[in-house]
């Protein structure tokens, strides 16, 4: 069975937004939208679930502060509690102000870096990744909506031509 998709290409983000809304209203499943820049409100119009990256970052921050606390408690208080310039190393809380800058930085470090790495993994981005660009113009000034075809090719083509597309292509995807 052939796996056909429609590429509807637009040259204006306002027209794209209208087209996305119409497509959703007509219950055609949008596989993907390619855009050269972030279009405000596109995710809402497409009905994409909100990201949970911020929640990840918060949890990573909690890990960071735990690492910092455990590390400094072990090194400075438990393992070798030296008197360094009269700083009280009897318990963690007594010397805590001196540790706060490191606790803060490690919280930020863990939250930021692990969140970025999570982003890369979730969006499958890495240095030698093969680009998945269906049409080179979508990185410059064109927008592309990809919709799957199920035996309704002619209906879909005419539908997208009515949504203001500058070009509608039917492609056989492997």
């Amino acid at each position, binding site marked *: 069975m052939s796996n056909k998709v429609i590429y509807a290409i637009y040259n204006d983000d306002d027209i794209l937004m209208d087209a996305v809304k119409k497509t959703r209203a007509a219950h055609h499943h949008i596989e993907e939208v390619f855009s050269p820049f972030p279009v405000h409100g596109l995710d809402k119009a497409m009905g994409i679930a909100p990201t949970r990256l*911020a929640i990840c970052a*918060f949890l990573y921050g909690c890990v960071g502060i735990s690492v910092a606390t455990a590390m400094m408690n072990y090194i400075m208080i438990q393992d070798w509690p030296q008197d360094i310039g*009269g700083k009280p190393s009897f318990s963690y809380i007594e010397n805590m*102000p*001196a540790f*706060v800058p490191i606790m803060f930085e490690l919280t930020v470090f863990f939250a930021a870096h692990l969140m970025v790495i999570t982003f890369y993994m979730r969006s499958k981005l890495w240095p030698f990744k093969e680009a998945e660009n269906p049409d080179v113009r979508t990185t410059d000034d064109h927008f592309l909506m990809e919709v799957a075809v199920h035996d309704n090719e002619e209906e879909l083509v005419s539908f997208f031509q009515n949504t203001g597309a500058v070009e509608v292509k039917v492609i056989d995807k492997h």
Partner: protein
Amino acid sequence: MYTFSSKLKTFSFVLMAIGFLGIGYGFYTAPKDIKEVEEILAADSHGTHAVKKEHGSTNEANSHEVHGSTEEKHVEAKTSSQKHEVSSDDEHTEHLNHVLHQLQNKPWSALYVACIFFMLVSLGVLVFYAIQQVAQAGWSPVLFRVMQGITSYLPVGAALFFVLLILCGLHFNHMFIWLDPEVVATDKLIANKTGYLNFPFWIVRAAIFLTGWSLYQYYSRKNCLAQDEANDDLLYKKNFKLSAMFLVFFIVSESIMSWDWIMSIDPHWFSTLFGWYVFASFFVSGVTTIALVTLYLKSRGYLEFVNNSHIHDLAKFMFGLSVFWTYLWFSQFMLIWYANIPEEVTYFITRIQLYNLPFFGAVVMNFLFPLLILINTDFKRISWVIVMAGIVILMGHYLDFFNMIMPGTVGDSWSIGVSEIASILFFLGLFIYVVFTALSKSPLLAKRNPFIEESKHFHY
């Protein structure tokens, strides 16, 4: 147009009445002479006399002794607390005198903290308002009338505060020990500062600052109301320039204000980032007050164009500025704690030993709580979450001012009792009355502000 609900008006009058009675009670029950102090001490020192003594002299060291000997005295007081049972009569009388001053200061300090707190909250709103004008913010013009309503408390609060400062200068209390010529005569450190810390110069500075702020408040509101009826944007531009000039004046006067009215309570101590620290405290309280008043008016159906996004923005400011306050609180504390130089560190020793719960409680209320509550985007759009966080933030910053002022005036005789709560209630009632009266005097939406359309349709 907003109409001041009669319920709220009655409520504010009740607060003022209760507060007034409580303040009077505080002054009435303050001890008049040493004998009464002796009775009070005898009454609450069953078996804890030695501890009491130690605290007394620790604190005395902090506020009255010449600087160099502070630490010595402190150490001595600690090690020889057992020997104190045989202390001489002289020392005993001196101690009683000291406690007498503290207890006499208590109702005054309670009044002072509440008075300066509410005045600075409205000043914080005024600064936020000026910044919004100068930054040409597109989201906030629908809130300008709310901010103008809140800042209309400033002239009233400033007048009351000025009276309080004059009463200090007329020796009705011992809050500012450098105002007492006897103390200055025996205290070399304070004597060296008399070029700056003298009553005429101090009161003139206060008059200039309070008038300057009130004038900006008055003219800015006047221009904004006139802009509603104008045919061009001339008055808007005038307000823009006025706001820019005010911000320059404000940052200079704010810094000096913090030395004059708060830091000089502990005239032996100094800190360079103190002005910023005080600013952060009342600025975040100001933004919180805007959010609370806005939510109240919105819930009564008066603010048609204020939506979730405006509230969300205010909540973001509450969150960010709470963190900013903590940053300054910690920077001030950590630098002094780390270097541990005796002449600076006494400030925090008093606070940690005698004010442990309020001192660290303020950090929990002003940092930990808002950090965990307001970090969530969805929560920043829920009214009751913001009201709850806002109330905790406001109480936390009252506590912050309490911590700044009380240790230098009442020392270990502090409590949050009738005087303190009554003073808060009185000024809260006055604040509500003045603010909502002002709000009912002009339309709640500015008509011809160049950014008003954008602000009406703001969404985030």
